[in-house]
Structures are given as C-alpha cells and as structure tokens.
C-alpha cells in the first residue's frame, strides 16, 4: 500500500506541475491572440517571449503524466485508455494543431495572424477538455457491460459537474497566465503590458474562485462520496481560499513605481495563487483516494509490479540529479536573465 501511495503522490505532483505550467502556456497563447492588434502595448510580445522557449518543456510534462500513469498503474490505464478514446483523441488533435501552428507562427511572419488565431483558440479549448478527465474519474459516466467499458458521452455533456470543471479550467487558465504575465512584464519593465495583465487578473480571479465553489456544489449531487471525503479536508480548503485572498490583495500592494500610478506586487500574487491551487489540489487528490476511477479502479488494484516500481523510482532519482541543473540553467536564461526578459530596443 505505501508504495502505491508514493506512486500516486508522484503522479499527482507531476499533474499539478503540468496543470500550472500548461495553464500559463495555454493562457499565454490566448492572450497573445487577444492583444495581437494592440501593437502599442507589447502585451503580445511579452506573451510570446515567455511562450517561445517554454512550450516544448511544458509539452514533455503531459507525456510524462501519461507514461507515469501506465508505468505505475497499468490497471488504471486499461480503463482510462478505453473510456478516454474519444476525448483523448480530440485533445491530441487540438494539441497537435496548436503546437505545430505555434512554431509555424514564429517562423512565417506573414501568416502570423491566422496562425496565432489557431493556437489561441485551441489554447483554451484544450484545458477545458483535459479537465474533463476529473469528472469522469469521479464516477457515474462509465458504463460497464460484459467486462467492456464505455464512456457515456451524452451523460457527461449534460452534467452540471462537467461544466463546473470546464468553467474552472478556462478561468484558471486565464487567471494563472495573466498573473504570471503580469509578473513577467513587471520584471521586463513593460509597464503598459503589466497594467493590462493586472487588470485581467483582477477580473478573472473571482470568477475562477466562483467556479471552484460551483464544482464543490455540483459534486454534492453527482459524486457524493467525494464530497463527503473532501469535507475532511476543510482546513486545506480554507488555506486555499486564504492563498487566493492574499494573492488577490497583493494586486493592490504598494508597487515599486508607486508614484507613476502603478499598484501591486505581482510576484507575491503569483506565489500565493500557486499555493492556493496546491492546497486545493492536495485536498481534492487526497479525498479522491483510494480511487483512481470510482468505483472500479483503486490505486492498489491498478498498481504495477513491485519490481518495476522500484526500478522506476531509481530512474526518477537519477534523473532528478541529472536534469535539475538543466532546469536551473533554463530558468536563469529565460526567466531571470534581464538580457532576455528585457531586451534593448532595436
């Protein structure tokens, strides 16, 4: 049992990292589309400067989740692979279009508009579909007969729970990305862009919190087992809300350039909000245990062979030490180096 618990914790950790990174990534794609025509603000440039070096790394995380899932929980793979054929394929199709056109739009200036449009639209559709995996695992949408399993697509798309999750995914994507881009433009000294992204965050923040409440509310009717469990994690939920409150308030904290009329400490806002999602993610993930897919697959029934588990953990540890310097170097080059973040006017 503890081994399976370690494994699911690891996977949930990777899911969390991907969720944050992908929200920022997809959101940045969306914003670069929205502000494409406002040349004077440079908001699009900021989004692109963040997006260009980071999307490939972000994309590796989604493959990492899939691989970790079938490596650690091959039993769950069977069920998930079977029922997610349609939604999973649609996600893949959109992801392929987006990644490709994102790259194309950097190379082919003349097509930039159309290409940015494709990557912007798919950028917020993908999170909406990705998150649908969660309501599916909460039970009620899988029909089992003669040992076969089938996803009840009609039931899924008429369920309030599904729409609560979709709303949450889209608003969170926009909230997290506007916060990060606010911080990024602040560091870059692009104060016009900062003002725009700060305003976006102020508008969307409360909507995302409302959607989270909507999820809990629908959960009560549609996945009562999870609702009951999640009540045991009330302190974590309160911590999460506190994280939001602090982060949101930080948008009005005194700014370095107070005299010029700017408000907010975006770095504190960003960190608090990530903590908000971390606490909520912990509560949701813990309440979901021991089920991976309710009620058929638990972390024990789906667990891999113990020998394979141990071998995998060894590779994780070795890889951690090999890759961490690479990640740090990457971070310093693209997120801290002023020469990249704040290039001289040419």
């Amino acid at each position, binding site marked *: 049992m503890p081994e399976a618990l370690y494994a699911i914790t690891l996977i949930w950790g990777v899911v969390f990292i991907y969720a944050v990174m992908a929200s920022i990534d997809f959101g940045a794609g969306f914003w670069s589309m929205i502000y494409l025509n406002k040349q004077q603000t440079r908001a699009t440039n900021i989004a692109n400067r963040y997006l260009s070096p980071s999307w490939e790394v972000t994309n590796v995380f989604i493959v990492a989740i899939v691989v970790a899932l079938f490596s*650690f929980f091959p039993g769950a793979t069977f069920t998930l692979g*079977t029922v997610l054929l349609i939604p999973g394929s649609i996600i893949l199709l959109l992801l392929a279009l987006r990644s490709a056109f994102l790259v194309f739009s950097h190379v082919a200036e003349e097509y930039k508009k159309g290409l940015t449009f494709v990557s912007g639209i798919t950028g917020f559709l993908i999170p909406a579909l990705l998150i649908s995996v969660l309501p599916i695992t909460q039970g009620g949408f899988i029909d089992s007969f003669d040992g076969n399993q089938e996803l009840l697509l009609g039931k899924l798309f008429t369920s309030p729970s599904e729409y609560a999750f979709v709303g949450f995914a889209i608003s969170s994507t926009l909230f997290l990305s506007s916060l990060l881009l606010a911080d990024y433009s602040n560091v870059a000294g692009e104060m016009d862009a900062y003002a725009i992204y700060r305003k976006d965050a102020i508008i969307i923040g409360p909507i995302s919190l409302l959607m989270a409440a909507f999820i809990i509310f629908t959960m009560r009717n549609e996945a009562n087992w999870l609702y009951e469990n999640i009540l045991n994690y009330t302190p974590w939920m309160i911590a999460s809300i506190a994280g939001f409150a602090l982060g949101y308030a930080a948008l009005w904290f005194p700014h370095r350039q107070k005299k010029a009329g700017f408000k907010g400490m975006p770095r504190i806002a960003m960190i608090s909000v990530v903590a908000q999602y971390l606490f909520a993610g912990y509560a949701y993930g813990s309440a979901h245990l021991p089920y991976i897919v309710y009620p058929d697959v638990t972390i024990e029934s789906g667990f891999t062979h113990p020998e394979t588990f141990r071998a995998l953990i060894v590779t994780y540890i070795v890889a951690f030490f090999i890759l961490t310097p690479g990640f740090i170097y990457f971070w310093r080059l*693209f997120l801290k180096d002023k020469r990249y973040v704040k290039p001289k006017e040419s």
Partner: protein
Amino acid sequence: MDDLVIARSLFGMTMGVHIIYATLGVGLPVMILVAELLFQKTKDKDYALMASRWTKGFAVLLGVAIPTGTIAGVQLSLLWPGFMEVVGKVIALPFQIEIYAFFLEALFMSIYIYAADRLSPWMRIVSVTLVAIGAVASAVLITNVHAFEGTPDGFKIQNGEIVDVDPWAAFLNPSFLVTSGHVAVSAIMTGAFAIASVAAFKMLKEKGPNKVYLYHQKALMMGLIIGGLFSLLTALNGHESAQQLHEYQPEKLAAAEGLFETQQYAPLAIGGFTDRETEEVKWAIEIPWALSYLAGDRFDTEVVGLNDFPEEYWPPLFVHTLFNAMVGIGSMLILLSLIGFVWHKFLKRDQFPRWLMGIFIAAGPLSMLSIEFGWIFACTGRQPWVIYRIMKTEDSVTTSGNLGILFLLFLLIYIILMIATVLVLRYYFKRNPVSKEIDTNIS
C-alpha cells in the same frame, strides 16, 4: 472493416507520419553539431550559417515531431490498452527514461535556439550536443520497446497473471542493442542524405561556382561523407539484425526471404514477389547458398522455412518486398556516397555531372522511404503478435468502437500538418535565401 484493422491502420498512420519527423529530428541535430564543430575548427562562416539555417528547419520539423510523438505515446494507451497493461508492468523503464531524454532535448533545444546570442561558442556546442544526445537517446529507448515486442524477456505469464518480473532483464532484451543501433545509425544517415539532397538541388539552380554554390557544395560533401559512413554502419548492423532474426524470430526471417522449406545451403532471393500457391518467390534473382551464409556465417546453416510453422502464425508474405526495398535502397546509398567521394577526392573534379547530382537529390527521399519500409517490415513482420509468442495483436486492441471516424480525423490533421510544414519551410527559406544571409554574414 473490423476494429483491429482500423486500429492498426490508425496507429500505423500515426507512426508513418511521426517517423518522417522523428528520423529527421534525430539526424539533423547531429549534422548541426558537425557544422558547429567544423566552424570552430575552420572558422569558415559558411558552416556557422549551415548550423543556423538547419536549426531553423529543425525547429519547424520539431513543431510536428513533438505533437505526433505525443499522439503516438497516448494512442498506445488508447488503442492498445491490453498491450499497455503488460508494458506498464514489465517494460515501463524505456518509456520512463525516454521522458528524461525528452526533457534534456527540450531544455537545451530552447537554450540553443533562443539563448544563442548569449552563449559562448563552447556552451553552444555543449547545448547542441545535449540536443543530439537527447534525440538519439529517445530513438534508442523507444526502439527498446519495439525490440522487447520481438524478443520479450524478463517476465512470465502463468494463468493469465504476469509473474517473475525483472524490469532490467526486459530492458536488456536480446535484440535491444542491435535493433536500436539500427534505428539510430539509419536516422543519422537519413538526416545526412536529406541535407545532401537539398544541397544538390540548390547547386543545380546556380549558374557557376559562386559563393552560394560553394556553400551548398560544402553542405553536399558533408552530407555525402556522413551519410556514406552511416549507411555503411547501417548495413553492418543490418546484417547483425538479420542473424538475430534467424536466432529469435525464424518465421520473420523466412517471410522476409520468402523461404518455405527448411533447408541447409538455402538460396537468397533478391527481388520478386512471394507466391503463396507455388511456395516460391517469383521473378527473383536467386543466389545459391547465400541465405544460409548470411544467417549463420556458414553455407551449411539450416534456415527454417515457413512450412515449419502453423500458417496462422505466418507474417504477411508481402514483407519480402518491403525487406528487399529497404536493403536495396541502403546498398545503393553506400555505392552512391562512394562514387561521390571518389569523384571528389581522387578524380579531383570540382563539379559533379548532372546525372550524379540528380541521384544525389533522390538520395534523401529514398533513404526516408527505406526507413519507412524498414519500420513497416519490422512491425508487420511480427504479426500476428504484438508481443512475440505471448500476446496477439487482436487480443490487445481497444473494445471501444468509433475508430473509423477517428481514423479520418487524424488523417485530416496529418494532411494539414504535412502540407503546412512544406509551406512554412518554403516560405521561410524563400524569404531568407542563402545569398542574402551570406552577405549579411560577411558584413
């Protein structure tokens, strides 16, 4: 059509598309690395320009290689959930380690492209080396799973349960090194010939030996030398692969050679089509004793024929043609680079004749074709098994329906992506011709 056929077609289509981008994604970083090294050694700015232009092309190709690879990885679980259950329990290691290779490649690819102006020459070379290592390692690791499907090891199935799992024994399965070596060296070969093709094409368009012409000539020679070297390695390794088939998957070798009767002094059939009724390869050139010698290094080696196996376990007989096409193209490429090398080094001619340039142009597409033939041969030649003699492909396929519509959707996306790749590459390189960049390079 039944779901098995559609599932195989869908996955085969995904792989067929991904292979094009992935192969170049392995081959090009090696070429870029060589160009960077040559630039540091010779200080000839043409090589720096090659590295930067190839990197641009490589970045565009990666834009499709990465999503199609993501599709392939996820589609495995979606289309073959039964197979992936065994994979998760037994052969998860290569997938997992491949993720680390992806990270290495993605991190340093971005560093190499977007931080190029802030890196020292030494750090640029380290970065592109790590990209190349990441790319080759991904290819080697994913081929590890393919090798495992052909020569499974490290587990047993008792009463439907997977027992005695030894994940490292599965990882180090008998055909791992030879098979993945084959994929790695043939990918580098293809990257090199792709470069040579483009260079030869561009040289034909130039009037005489001007700056642009000389730039492309250097690229052509680089492509021919590296391509020739690696086509030779591919052939040597291929011989090894065939001997492994003889040892571990005799019915696959028998189908590849169209051999029905088990025999010593078996002949090698080159070309032709295997005929089921007459149990022979029609219109083939037969070389007496050669197959026995190739299989076991002795003319009296007994090579097992298809008739020794129940027909339901036979691979499809058309694999003989695929196998021959792969080997044929490979042999021709070795010869081609040899001719090019001799012409340039020993005959000391500055220019190649037009007919030879024409063949050089064909070399890139041909080597890609032989990669495709090789993969189709390797995968259909294993049928009806997904894991040789342990799990049948039909037993691992998804039970969900609706595969037909998915096939069409993916087909559509692949067509869009492939056309877009060509358009974007054309657009970029038309806007930024070598002639323009050479001038800005000097000033």
